[in-house]
């Protein structure tokens, strides 16, 4: 909609004031995190608000000097990559079946998948823990990758099948006439046609796994296996008196996600709200 002149100057100022105020609120904690990370301890204590009186990279050096921090960062990368790829492969197959095949029980399966999207993970945690204990998979990254991938599946299948369904059947028919088999159809026609959907889904899923805390705290208790998010809480208590170092750690932990956000902002935002808008 075009800006409406009838709101008038007063309405316009009210809107700008509200938005500016909320922007300040949204940015202030982030500003605080960033400027603090570049201050030394004394600077922080005497000057909490302002810019650093002298920019220091010492805090980052301290963080990088922590052996554990690297381990945790690596663990998060492994878990995120593993579970996102696994979920994607499984979801592609399932979404193809849902979008382009008819089979008995299809409606049921779809309804169950949609209902599961809202079941909170905390409900599954205890039996999963029992199961993993039996399988000897506590403190196992493979086990957690499996759990994460499983948790990602309902949303992934739902989103991908929506995108697949939008691929015109004529395209598929044309390929069939050329003698294209069902599986080859999937990776020759469907997957390339829905490429943007994959990017979106990969980003959305990665953010979720990277930021997840409950499951990682419960299933990866070994210090060397902790994820970054679980490790940060340890890190924080260790440097509880050195706030600038903690802040530097937080910035490094946010960086991968922030880069994803600014690199693929449109896809990112669309992905997070996809399904929700039409739904």
């Amino acid at each position, binding site marked *: *909609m075009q800006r409406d002149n009838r709101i008038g100057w007063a309405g316009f100022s009210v809107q700008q004031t509200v938005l500016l105020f909320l922007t300040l609120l949204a940015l202030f904690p982030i500003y605080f995190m960033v400027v603090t990370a570049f201050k030394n301890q004394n600077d922080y204590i005497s000057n909490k608000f302002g810019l650093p009186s002298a920019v220091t990279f010492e805090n980052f050096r301290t963080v990088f000097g922590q052996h554990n921090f690297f381990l945790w960062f690596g663990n998060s990368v492994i878990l995120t990559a593993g579970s996102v790829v696994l979920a994607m492969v499984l979801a592609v197959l399932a979404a193809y079946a849902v979008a382009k095949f008819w089979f008995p029980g299809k409606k049921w399966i779809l309804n169950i998948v949609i209902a599961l999207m809202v079941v909170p993970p905390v*409900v599954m945690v*205890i*039996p*999963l823990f029992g199961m993993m204990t039996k399988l000897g998979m506590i403190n196992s990254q493979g086990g957690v990758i499996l759990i994460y991938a499983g948790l990602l599946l309902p949303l992934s299948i739902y989103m991908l099948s929506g995108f697949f369904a939008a691929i015109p059947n004529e395209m598929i028919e044309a390929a069939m006439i050329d003698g294209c088999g069902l599986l080859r159809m999937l990776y020759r026609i469907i997957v390339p046609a829905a490429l943007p959907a994959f990017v979106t889904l990969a980003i959305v899923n990665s953010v979720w796994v990277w930021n997840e*805390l409950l499951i990682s705290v419960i299933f990866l208790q070994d210090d060397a296996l902790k994820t970054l998010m679980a490790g940060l809480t340890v890190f924080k208590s260790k440097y509880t008196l050195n706030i600038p170092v903690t802040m530097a750690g937080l910035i490094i932990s*946010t960086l991968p996600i*922030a880069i994803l956000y600014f690199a693929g902002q449109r896809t990112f935002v669309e992905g*997070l709200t996809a399904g929700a808008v039409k739904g």
Partner: protein
Amino acid sequence: MYATRKHAVYAYLLLAPSLLAILFVYLYPVVKNVQYSFSAVLGPVTKYVGWRNYRLLFKSDTFTTALLNNAKLLLAVPIMIFVTLLVAVFLHEKIRGWKIYRTVLFFPYILAVPIAGIVFGYIYQLNGILNELLRTLGLNALALDWLGSPKIALWSLMSVIIWKEMGFGIVLFLSRMLTIPHELYEAAMLDGASWRQRHWHVTIPEVRQTLEFYFTITVITMLSGVFGYVYVMTGGGPGNSTSVSELFIYQTAFKFQNIGMASAVSVVLLVISLVFVFLQLRLRREDGDAAR
């Protein structure tokens, strides 16, 4: 598209790995959880105890406090709906700088919960930046122990949840509003509708389904998606003043090894969540009928 019997078999084969994973991660645990909630669980041995876990649960002050705290957090829902809708309407009018506002206001949402929690932990410290600001402004009386005082700690937590989760709502509503046909507004303008009337009679009805969806997921978040905030910022304290159901489950199961009772809480949460989802789906079906 493919609808023969041979194709149906093929479809099941394609679905099998996902269904297996879903069975393993969702369905089996949910069923098992219900079973546990009626049992005393000692290592590998489970013994049926009827409703005992539930009875004990609702007699336990620790649990009722936690559940009540979840209920208090629900107050955030109307606040979030009001503010996100209002902001989305402003941005939808393509106010100058709307794209920048959208980017910036969404940013808190991508921060991880533990990260937001730690940063706000420092902001809310007794000698933290917020109180320093208040003291500089001469508002010494307002410089409270935000996370350390049992009376206000929960509300401080709630403010962080709102701060972080709001961006999603704004972007969600905005993307729905961008699909509203322009003609509807033009017609309303021709009828001489005021700004408020236009949004009340055009925007709100148009985004109604999104509103119901957002309401549902926000309610579910407040009931069962706030573990990270509590765990990182207060650990449930001081006392039990900021404990929530999820933390109760975590502590009961993994600290006190009382699996039966923890499972009963999970079932309670599951039932409440499903009730809200069911209501939302019903509303949507009614909307669908009305539209036809």
